């Protein structure tokens, strides 16, 4: 897990891990057009954000079931009521 006290290192890792043209491609996948200039301006925030969410990726969630559950209809009644 990242050392939260070493913020600059986290940001450095995050920004070096994702070059600006990759940010543009990722944004395009979500249907958002970001100009080169805008990506450049956003890079410090992107680095800080990625440093935060990389903490999530490094946490241990091995024994946890998916939290998102899919249900059809009422949980308490049988199909024939």
């Amino acid at each position: 897990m990242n050392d939260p006290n070493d913020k600059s290192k986290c940001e450095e890792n995050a920004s070096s891990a994702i070059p600006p043209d990759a940010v543009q491609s990722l944004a395009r996948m979500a249907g958002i057009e970001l100009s080169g200039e805008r990506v450049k301006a956003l890079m410090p925030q992107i680095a800080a954000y990625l440093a935060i969410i990389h903490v999530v990726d490094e946490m241990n969630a091995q024994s946890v079931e998916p939290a998102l559950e899919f249900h059809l209809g009422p949980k308490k009644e049988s199909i024939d009521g």
Partner: protein
Amino acid sequence: MASVRNDLCDQPLVDIAGRIRRRDMSSTEVTESVLSRIEALDNRLNAFITVTAEHARRQASEADREIRNGGYRGPLHGMPISVKDLFATTGIRTTGGSRILRDWIPDVDATVVSRLRQAGAILVGKTNMYEFAYGAVHPDVGPAKNPWDPTRSTGGSSSGSAAAVAAGMGFASVGSDTGGSIRIPAAFCGIVGLKPTYGRVSRYGAIPLSWSCDHMGPMTRTVADCAAMLQGIAGFDPLDSTSSELPVGDYLANLESDAAGLRIGIAESYLYGAIVPSALPFIKSGIKHFEQMGASIRMIEPPSPSEIVPLLLTIMSAEAAAYHLPSLRDKPEEYSEAVRERLELGALTPATTYIQAQRLRKQVVEQMSNAMSSVDILLMPTSPMTAPYIQGDLSTSGDADPDMLAARINYTGPFDLTGFPAITVPCGFTPSGLPVGLQLVAKPYQERLLLSAARAYERTTNWHQRLPSAVIVE
């Protein structure tokens, strides 16, 4: 400045409700007082986006007619209140504090609004808020000002609700809380704010920030008022898929229980994190106060904010981006710069990271439940800071710095992620006259216990009786 509340507008909701019930006073009289207060103060405080004066007068007249005919509905009947401008209101503009929705007039009420209408409450207006409740003020709307010092921020995102209630522009308001948006402004403005258990109050008809982290709850000047408001808005709603079917308790009953025997937990990671030195003595004094009332204090080890806040930010950022994607694609320039940046960052969140955060959330809920199994209440500061100056604040600077946002929600965010109920009550004033909030947290659906613990503290202190400077110079 210490001053006792004495104007009608500054009295507790439940006291004025009693006078309306006894017909010592009419709803019209009370509503006119509140509308006059709004007229006198709101040009300085910017607490309202829309004031619904004529609507309120009609509702008040109808309430008076009903009450005269023996149709008294309960403590909200005839009481002037406001709601944050993210709750849909039939026929009344609902902007979400944004340019994008500046002209939206819904044809439906949010469940919170329809319940307040059923309880007979009088809607005096829709309150100012951060744009789409996402950390920054839209320049078209401008910031609400703190009634204790108008050069200071109210905090947010339920900024106008906190300013309105603190300044007597309504007896209560309803806000929303995804990272601390009820509790932080309540603490900065010296009022009571309750974020209920996730599922206790319907989210239907509230513009979402993050579906799985959004909570709706009351903001008031006293704990009893908060209980009365929660009673009015809580309960199962088939229109909200995450609404709980558990029956709602009687929040006003047993409110006067004392704190003797209460088991209060405190945690190193929630006490000494990054709190400003001027606020910490009040939190320590709050702990001592509960001890003197007969509560036992013990150290516990819940999962720390540094573990929880990244999960919350991941989920909130991704869900907010998902909700806003159509507007972000088509008219990004209509967002404020900071909100646009936050949404763009959220759109870059990998799906796998979002899913990991939701999985880990389950684990954190279990850890929080285990840590709290030996106590009734967890006590901590509401915010690591007191109200900052508006100029240069994160909410107005256009800066979307995720680290700064994370720091702001250090003490409040963990309970939006876990869904545990939490309340803030005023617990002191710094030497510069700024309110400090004390936060109490309970286990899921224990709002009754939470309210009675908060009331025990309030009953033996007088912080809630102070009057903000904006009201004194009226």
